[in-house]
């Protein structure tokens, strides 16, 4: 079993984000980047599969400033190999990124591709579906657990959670693209010593690809900061009084049925 995990960086919200002069993107000159949280879970899921069934894991990412660090961290976490895909430009939307990544993933020929179900920057959630379409593979999204099943891992069993506490278990034939919502356990800590060992182990393999053929299909019209609320109302009194006032307020504003 060979698993490819697709990783991407998103702006770190510890820094205050500014909108650039064009009004259609954040100002990226001061932004600090970090690994997308859902991708972090996809990577953890891949490492768990490696530990349980001896799968081989390759971390893949579109080349961008800081991506080497992300890929080294993936190797330190347990990925066997890492590859960055140089698409000639750093900021790609899901459609064009998937197009660039599909070529590299075809070369790697994995049985399983794990992607984060979405990324905090655009919330499109389309990288998985686009990638599956480009590869001509099946796709399952919003997955919270992946296991290998059947003879020698000939099938992949995935868990999906639905509203109302329902859970589905689906079986799918590899090769398949899976959008991971959450790994069965939180992403593990990567000790800095191991990260530094990974960084000393040599450069990240690079592959070039083009996304030029793919049309984005989505155009950003404007980006704006959320409007600040009008302040908080502090309710004082005994616990019973406060509870009654809250219940009355929720009723007045139609947030609960009377």
């Amino acid at each position, binding site marked *: 079993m060979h698993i490819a995990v697709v990783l991407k960086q998103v702006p770190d919200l510890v820094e205050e984000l500014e909108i650039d002069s064009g009004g259609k993107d954040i100002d990226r000159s*001061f932004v600090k980047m*970090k690994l997308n949280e859902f991708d972090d879970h996809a990577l953890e899921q891949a490492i768990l599969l490696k530990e349980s069934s001896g799968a081989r894991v390759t971390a893949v990412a579109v080349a961008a400033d800081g991506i080497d660090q992300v890929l080294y961290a993936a190797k330190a976490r347990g990925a066997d190999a890492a590859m960055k895909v140089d698409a000639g430009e750093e900021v790609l939307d899901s459609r064009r990124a998937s197009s660039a990544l599909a070529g590299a993933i075809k070369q790697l020929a994995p049985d399983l591709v794990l992607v984060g179900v979405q990324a905090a920057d655009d919330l499109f959630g389309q990288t998985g579906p686009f990638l599956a379409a480009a590869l001509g593979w099946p796709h399952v999204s919003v997955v919270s657990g992946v296991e290998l099943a059947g003879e020698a891992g000939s099938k992949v069993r995935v868990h999906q959670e639905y509203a109302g506490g329902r859970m589905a278990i689906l079986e799918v034939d590899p090769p398949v693209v899976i959008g991971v919502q959450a790994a069965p356990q*939180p992403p593990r*800590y990567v*000790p*800095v010593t191991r990260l*530094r060992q990974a960084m000393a182990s040599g450069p990240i393999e690079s592959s070039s690809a083009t996304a030029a053929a793919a049309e984005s299909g989505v155009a950003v019209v404007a980006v704006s900061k959320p409007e600040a609320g009008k302040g908080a109302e502090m309710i004082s009194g005994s616990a019973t009084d406060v509870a009654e006032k809250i219940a009355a307020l929720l009723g007045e504003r139609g947030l609960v049925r009377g």
Partner: protein
Amino acid sequence: MSKVESQRTNEQEHLEFEGMDISGHWNRMFEQRVIWEHDTSALDKVTSIAGAESLGWCYQCGKCTPACPVDHVGDYSPRKIFRRTQTGIDLLTSPDLWLCTTCMNCLRVCPKEVNMISIMPAVREVAVAEGNVPPELQKAFENTFQHGNPLGEPARKRADWVADAGAPVAILPREKRPVDVLFYVECYWSYHPRGKDAARAFARTMETLGIDWGILGHEEKCSCDSQRLAGEKGLFEMVAEQNIATLAKYEFQRLVTSDPHAYNSFRNEYPKLGGEYQVQHYTQFLAPLMKDLPWKRKLDYKITFHDPCYLGRHNGEYDAPREMIRQIPGLEFIEMFRCKENGYCCGGGGGGMWLDSFTGNHIRERLSERRVKEAIETGAEMLVVCCPYEVSRFEDAVKSTGNEGKLLVRDVIELVDEALH
């Protein structure tokens, strides 16, 4: 299961020794008992870790138990850790691994020099490498790696406190000039609201003294001593190398820091990585200068003082903060019964600062809560501290023990500032 041979004795019916008749039971000797099949693997696993060998030297005298601040609020101490490990409990996965604050009071009294200051970081490092690290501590490590401080605050805002200092502060990356004193502000004086109060008081005091000083601004990163003691040696080494490279860019005579933990690392750990500095804790720097200060008023406070473990026991400095207290006009000073070499611990050292919820599940009360009760017992109305971890820890503890209004917590520099204005 251990198998123990029954007791055998050796007794001579007639024996004379140096003119004394010690026949019969007077000369009875117990032979060594042989214990078979005693499983020592849990202890061997710990003592085979470089730096953790001395756990095996414990001979169970128990002197450490009453000295250990964690045992006062729980069921702990090095003797107990040794015994549990000897009976097969795996220290690497036990909660015991994370409760030690590396306060060093056990090493002070240990006749066998079982060194928890070396054992704990070494064993924790192995646990961290195996992915066994409490989530809240993991977050502090990740924040330090990503942002240069355990609080997860933006590096760009590290010197924001300067704006309201009411005194000029030279931010050296902007001003690029040599200074007499390079002040290492550290994380809690840079970001914590009460820490910033102390940093501003320090800036005003430095202006009054006319000292030529500056700070590293956004280029400063955590000294990382507590991360090292919490088991992330690799993170410590990486950030320390970055800090050494940053410090090398600037010209200064002395390095002065707010934080006893930073002081400890600059004094004892950075030299091992090639960073040699003439370093002082701010109380050591200021104590000799106190006599020159133009005091404006007397402070009518009855105070007591808490020794930081990393200024006192770890580095032997008990006098500098007391000298400052003595010079501030008007203060009435009462020592707590646990002070100086036997000072209690606030619970923040060795990673404890970032393990509050975890530790809370294994002790009856926080160490800081125990300490504020001791402070109140002296009759003092104010607890004076000189470590950036402590103001917030003790202020929280005053509230959580229901003593709000009974005890104020102030950094000693805040009192200096108050008496000068």
